[in-house]
């Protein structure tokens, strides 16, 4: 995988709302952290150009380990480094990191509660042309089920940077899910990410959308369209899927008739499941889960795929209108 040419971000205002892939924000955050903290080490499995850990590798070669194409060893080695007091970030594509090395994550990282940060890129169907083999649509489900694991899905580049800094100050296993494609910046300038705290853009009286990752921007667009149609639909960025911000979910559910979850992930086991599990036990509500319906992805452009799987503002609008009938 070749590193794409990137324009220099130097000199740009931080407030500029520029679309950036969350993986690019990760690469920048790692570089910042590497300068600040000597205990940060980074491991990759032959995808450092794509996951953007290559930037750290170039700046701090003595603290970067390319493990080759061996995800299981990647996780175990990261675990060993954490035992010596290092703070390892282990990265590769989401489908390989969480799938190929799931048992290593369970046995070595979570069971021993090691301070290992798993930051995976190329999640979801927006991987695009590579097709289903490379599109992780079950990663949140299989990470969420692990005791001691925290699961975070940032909505944009700004939030991603904050997430990377926040998890470096948190002790314990964390899975961060990032994407390949550019996403618009949606989080406000004064936003401060906190693990386990959702961000509510506004609460709607008709319906509320609980979204994660790229679906936050899509949901905001849907909310705008619905407003023009006279419906008050709120949007919540549930970037920490585990532990779920149940307080926010409960508050949103109490003031509206319909909760919609939106995720670039299977509707089995992901954000929709997490919200449903909580509400069904605590405040039974009408819920519609928007996501991939027990299916694999396929090749296509990310835009085409989002449309094919119904992960668009138009489909959210249609779903909510039908749901509110």
């Amino acid at each position, binding site marked *: 995988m070749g590193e794409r040419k990137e324009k220099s971000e130097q000199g740009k205002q931080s407030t500029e709302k520029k679309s950036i892939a969350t993986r690019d924000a990760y690469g920048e955050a790692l570089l910042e952290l590497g300068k600040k903290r000597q205990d940060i080490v980074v491991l990759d499995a032959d995808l450092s150009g794509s996951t953007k850990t290559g930037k750290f590798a170039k700046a701090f070669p003595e603290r970067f380990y390319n493990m080759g194409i061996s995800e299981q060893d990647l996780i175990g080695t990261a675990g060993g480094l954490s035992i010596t007091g290092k703070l390892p970030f282990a990265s590769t594509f989401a489908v390989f990191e969480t799938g190929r090395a799931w048992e290593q994550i369970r*046995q070595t990282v979570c069971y021993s509660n090691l301070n290992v940060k798993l930051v995976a890129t190329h999640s979801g169907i927006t991987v695009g042309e590579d097709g289903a083999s490379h599109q992780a649509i079950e990663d949140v489900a299989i990470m969420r089920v692990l005791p001691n694991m925290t699961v975070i899905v940032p909505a944009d580049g700004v939030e991603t940077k904050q997430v990377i800094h926040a998890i470096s100050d948190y002790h314990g296993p964390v899975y961060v899910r990032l994407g390949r494609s550019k996403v618009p910046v949606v989080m406000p300038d004064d936003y401060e990410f906190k693990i386990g705290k959702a961000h509510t853009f506004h609460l709607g009286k008709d319906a509320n959308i609980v979204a994660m990752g790229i679906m936050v921007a899509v949901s905001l667009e849907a909310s705008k369209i619905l407003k023009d149609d006279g419906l008050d639909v709120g949007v919540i960025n549930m970037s920490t899927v585990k532990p779920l911000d149940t307080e926010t979910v409960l508050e949103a559910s109490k003031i509206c008739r319909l909760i919609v979850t939106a995720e670039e992930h299977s509707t089995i086991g992901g954000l929709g499941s997490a919200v449903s599990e909580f509400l069904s036990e605590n405040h039974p509500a009408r819920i519609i889960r928007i996501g991939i319906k027990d299916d694999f992805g396929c090749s296509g452009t990310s835009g085409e795929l989002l449309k094919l799987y119904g992960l668009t503002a138009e489909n959210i609008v249609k779903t909510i209108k039908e749901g509110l009938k």
Partner: protein
Amino acid sequence: MKPNVSEKDIAVLREKAKTLRIEILKMLTEAGSGHTGGSLSAADIVTALYFYKMRHHPNDPKWIERDRFILSKGHAAPVLYAALALSGYFDKSLLSTLRKLGSPLQGHPCSRKLPGIEISTGSLGQGLSIANGIAMGLKLDSLSSRVYCLLGDGEIQEGQVWEAAMTASHYNLDNLCAIIDNNGLQIDGHCCDVMCVEPIVNKWAAFGWHVLDINGHDMEAIVSALNEAGTLKGKPTMIVARTVKGKGVSFFEGKVEYHGLAPTHEELEKALKELKG
């Protein structure tokens, strides 16, 4: 290479290994389940590590300059528990709680429950990667501590072991010494019938390791090999320790069924008589 250890010291280590075996048999009998064969086959190796080679402070299990031991074949937990108890990490009376509800002596080692356990193991094939990571971290901190990792021979059928084998030699982890408890048996039978792992020595040599082929019950040979590993620069060392499953108790030796069976009370009595001779 002759060990620079006196014959008297070797004799003391042999006695210690016998004590370990006795504790292993007693705790397994009390537990009523567990892995007898592979704990006994590793007893001499683990004795040499804990009572001769490794620098460690039982009163300060997290001492930063300690040597590290990873029991990748986690089912041999009893041999590790015996070594830790006899070293003084915890009271020997805890050994009788093995595998019981509320005990820190879990069926397979759990680092969150018991001092002296570096990392939880039990799922085969994962320990060497962890040992590599520790060796890398120690090098980053310029610490002279060494890392020891004990694997089973059946265990090296796991693919991850060979990923880790490449990593250790690629990163020149000369502060790492792995040992294979080559007792030739696994649950379903002889390793050579289930899934042949030979030629073990050639395989590790081909992966860039310095390989030593020894009798894993010859205390002098074990001590020599561990010393040689400590002097080697530039590559990791693999000690292929040829062992006998169930070693020390004639009616357990070489018996595949005692991989996962605990002794009965009658068997224990007979075994202790044999060991105490």
